[in-house]
């Protein structure tokens, strides 16, 4: 998986055309970096060193520069994650409404055991995140791209049924 020879190129054909389209929005190639990294993550599920090198090549940047940007932003995965990546808000407004219990429930019902670890079946990874901008609907949870509101520790098992 970490071997360069097995890196499946991201920016061929259609995706390359889409990136070229995106590049037209900005006066510099560098500005397409965040969108390009999103495309990598969409294609591979995470952003590997090989993918960073490919992005660097396409946007005429250095791999070290790209890595510096990737590591700044928490949403880019630098390691493979479970099929369902679960982000639970635990910042103060959610915290006082029971977010810590929601995290516990996810850890228990997914079999992940601890934060950031992927369950043995490869299905789930659970992480705590800071304010998701939906504090009135505590506790908001992101499962991949699904934004789910009003999650409580009691509703976690039912919710997980949708992500098998």
């Amino acid at each position: 998986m970490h071997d360069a020879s097995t890196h499946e190129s991201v920016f061929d054909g259609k995706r390359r055309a889409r990136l070229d389209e995106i590049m037209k929005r900005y006066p510099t190639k560098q500005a397409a970096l965040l969108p390009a990294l999103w495309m990598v993550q969409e294609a591979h599920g995470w952003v590997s060193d090989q993918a960073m090198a490919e992005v660097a090549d396409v946007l005429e940047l250095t791999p070290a520069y790209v890595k510096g940007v990737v590591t700044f932003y928490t949403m880019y995965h630098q390691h493979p994650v479970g099929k369902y990546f679960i982000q639970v808000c635990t910042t103060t407004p959610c915290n006082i409404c029971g977010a810590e219990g929601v995290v516990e429930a996810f850890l228990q019902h997914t079999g992940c055991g601890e934060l950031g670890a992927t369950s043995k079946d490869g299905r789930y990874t659970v992480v705590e995140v800071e304010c998701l901008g939906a504090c009135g609907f505590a506790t908001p949870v992101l499962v991949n791209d699904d934004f789910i509101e009003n999650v409580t520790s009691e509703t976690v098992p039912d919710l997980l049924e949708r992500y098998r």
Partner: protein
Amino acid sequence: MGYPHKPHPRETLVLSEHFGDSDARTYDGWVKRGGYRALEQALGMEPQAVIDEVKASGLRGRGGAGFPAGVKWDFMPKQKSKRHYLCCNADESEPGTFKDREIMRWTPHALIEGCAIAAHAIRAEVVYVYIRGEFTEAIAVMQQALDEAYAKGVLGRKALGSGTSIDMYIHRGAGAYICGEETALMNSIEGKRGNPRIRPPFPAAVGVFGMPTTINNVETLGSVPHIMTRGAEWYKSLSLSSPKSTGTKLMSVCGHVARPGNFEITMGFPMKDLIYDLCGGMSPGRTLKAVIPGGSSVPVLDREEAENCVLDYEGCVAAGTMLGSGGMIVFDDTADMVYQMMRIAKFYAHESCAQCTQCREGTAWTVRILQKILSGRGEMQDLDLLLDVGEMMTGKTICVLSDSCAAPVGSAVQKFRGEFEAYIKGARQPAVALV
């Protein structure tokens, strides 16, 4: 409460009038509700006339600082020698704040229209709408609305058939609170780490890609179409207290209230009525303990201060805090203020971009000292130390993230000192194990 729901009769529905009505999301639905008339009107006006109208309305920035929008637009060069840019700040990451998301989810065309009017006023041909990466639904709704707006000729080379060219693009963030700070946001658009920039130069002179730039919050820009169609005088008349605070404000209320959610009030509305009437008060048997009214970055109010606070820029300052983004976090008597301050400090420590020593070290130290107190190993002098560290974190850094950590923590140490002392004296069981 999510949308749709019946608005409270004491709300003033301007921005939120069509929240919950999915027909308003479409171009046709928006036009049916009077949409894009404001843009048509603005495009027929001189840019300066648009700026003057917004100035006269008294509209102030809803992103946190409350800077007059028209005055900010007026800073942009009048002789155009370079490209001009508008950035719409849809990073909405301030704990307690969740209003911009509803504007984008329910009335995307209102935001597009406001952005286009502002772009015309500041002579910008390109608008970047910077939306936080986690807002997947808002991004999808906005993208669809943008596609429609292009298809209908609202945007593009000849916006609404005028001589003005306006392009608008979504730039998706990737998880960093600091990118809501305007200069960090510009770096993030440029494909860089989101480190705030030293000012001066200010964005109106040297902004994104080195060009003159204006940055405004979603709610600020969303208010602009209403000012165009109904006039500055009408907007100015929406003011219950200080004449320096005009219009409506979407207040996001969260935490320990019976009905959390967004409530649109006229500036100057009493906080007490918002909490006890619109939000239905505390849960049965509970009493109000504290409120942080402007997102987590401002000083905390105790019960008495909160019950006497008037919700506008001046009213909040008079109460010793700030209106900020209008994200109100309400705590009842069950809240552990020491633990919650630790949790708030942890947020800032996590989100510090780590450029400035005072912020990087100060936020981390604040967490450590609070954890020490919570673990039962605190000493009385730790309280002075917290205040000292807070002072070192205030007014000394490139941006105000550092100040934003010190403000709630310092005010809580002063107003809820007894709770901190209870941990130190052993009157309260340790809440965390010392790491």
